[in-house]
């Protein structure tokens, strides 16, 4: 049933989060995440009928700025921090995708 944590599948969640866990981490996180979600049951017991969710608090007024072209970060400098990049070609590089 949705909304219960009895079926937490840590391996599946790790795959979604792109984390490669060791068997020890999988065992530890299964217990700890189950404990934390059990602790969070107090939230689910609160009556929220008709209560709108809050994503964040602001002033309610959007902040605008002029849509002017501004200088961006220097490409060579940005690529300096990129692992395995090709600064001469101006490209990030990654292992083959397929």
């Amino acid at each position, binding site marked *: 049933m*949705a*909304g219960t944590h009895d079926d*937490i599948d*840590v391996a599946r*969640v*790790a795959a*979604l*989060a*792109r*984390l*490669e*866990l060791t068997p020890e*981490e999988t065992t*530890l*996180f299964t217990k*700890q*995440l189950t*404990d*934390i*979600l059990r*602790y*969070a049951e*107090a*939230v*689910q017991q*609160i009556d*929220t009928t008709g*209560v*709108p*969710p*809050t*994503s*964040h*608090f*602001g*002033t309610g*007024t*959007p*902040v605008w*700025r002029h849509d002017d072209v501004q200088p961006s*970060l*220097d490409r060579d*400098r*940005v690529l*300096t*921090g*990129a*692992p*395995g990049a090709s600064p001469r070609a101006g490209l*990030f590089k*990654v*292992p*083959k*995708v397929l």
Partner: protein
Amino acid sequence: MGAPETTARGLRHAIQQGTTTAEAACEAALARIAATNPDLHAFHLVDAERALNRARALDRATGPQGPLHGVPVALKDNITVAGMTTTAGSKMLADYVPPYDATVVEKLEAAGAVIIGKTICDEFSMGSSTENSAFGPSRNPWDPERAPGGSSGGSAVAVAADMTPLALGSDTGGSIRQPAAFCGVVGLKPTYGRVSRYGLIAYASSLDQIGPFAHTVADAALCLQAISGPDPHDSTAAAVEVPDYEAALTGDISGLRIGVPRTWLREGVDAEVTAAFERSLAALVAQGATLHDIDLPHSRVAIPVYYLVATAEASSNLARYDGVRYGLRIPDARTLGDMYDRTRDAGFGAEVKRRIMLGTYVLSAGYYDAYYVKAQQVRTLIRRDFDQAFATVDVVAMPTTPTAAFPLGALNADPIQMYLADIFTVSAPLAGLPAISVPCGLTRDRLPIGLQLTGKAWDEATLLRAADAFEQAIGDWRG
């Protein structure tokens, strides 16, 4: 600690009077760091050359001096400075050199501050002790076997141990106020939107806010003044007028209405903390403030609400660490997917993985409404409780933490017990409100205790006025 010559205002005054120079102040800070940092480990990185060059340039400059002219400032190591390694306490960013300055750095330097270096913090701000730092922990100057608090623990230690008069931290669930309380300094989390987060390494974007550590409320006000205001680089930095915070410190709190959520505070608060809190309330009443019982019923579940909301946001924010554009990359991956998985496994520590996993789970199909949306609804109720309270009071008073600083290692094995250290600090960020921790006493073991005041949104002025008057009233809390 906290003598006039160690405060930002005292130092500014001395430089203005010509009794010292920015360079001498910088050298004094560096000498103090050299003497105390090996034991306390507040700083992960000190850039002495940059700081001294900057201080000498300030001494050479003619014309009007900024409000922080020559004042050394420490930065939590999740705030970017162009060319200065910024790790966020993570192996993922151990060698990351940002190509740009955070807006708060530009603002501090425009005000004349001298950036000294970067302080130890829990990895991606996830923790309450600095023990989750890949480079930590920092140690509490009051007892080096105890935690300084976290996640901005190094910044709290830097100020508490007189290494720098000011430091910046960031607060998501208490990460400024809790270490301020543990280390016996002032720590302020501004209203959500008061200070630009451009250049702050994101943890939970609906909660994160940068704020100051200082010896005095007046110094915190001075620093807040310098870093506040809208920013074209951050649309959440609101176009709200920034009042004159130093002018707000009138010392007069006669008639100030203080709300106290007494029924909640009866649960699980250390007796010495309760005693210090009651003495603090009496000191406020002696200055003319009045006390009013209020109720914040939904703040009782603020901790689980926080861990559902913050981890959901963290799982999204930390998706960017994929080994492609910056940060760590595992060198021998054969495929892109392999590189992602193994880079993230190698780069993230246990608490970060735990929170990414929790956040991924609560956002996943079938659980999103039951956990994430539900938590956001209760977040609305937490704010409504405060709105209702603020209809009849000006500020809300609570202890900052339920206990004084705990021993390093004491809570490591049990994440929930560690999370409970933030029980009184998570409500303010969930409700978007400003809150400040001010030292209010010591335990018998000589560990600091913090008084927390929470204010109305955008009303840091009242918060600072109340905190400053309290500070004057309580006098030497170290006694």
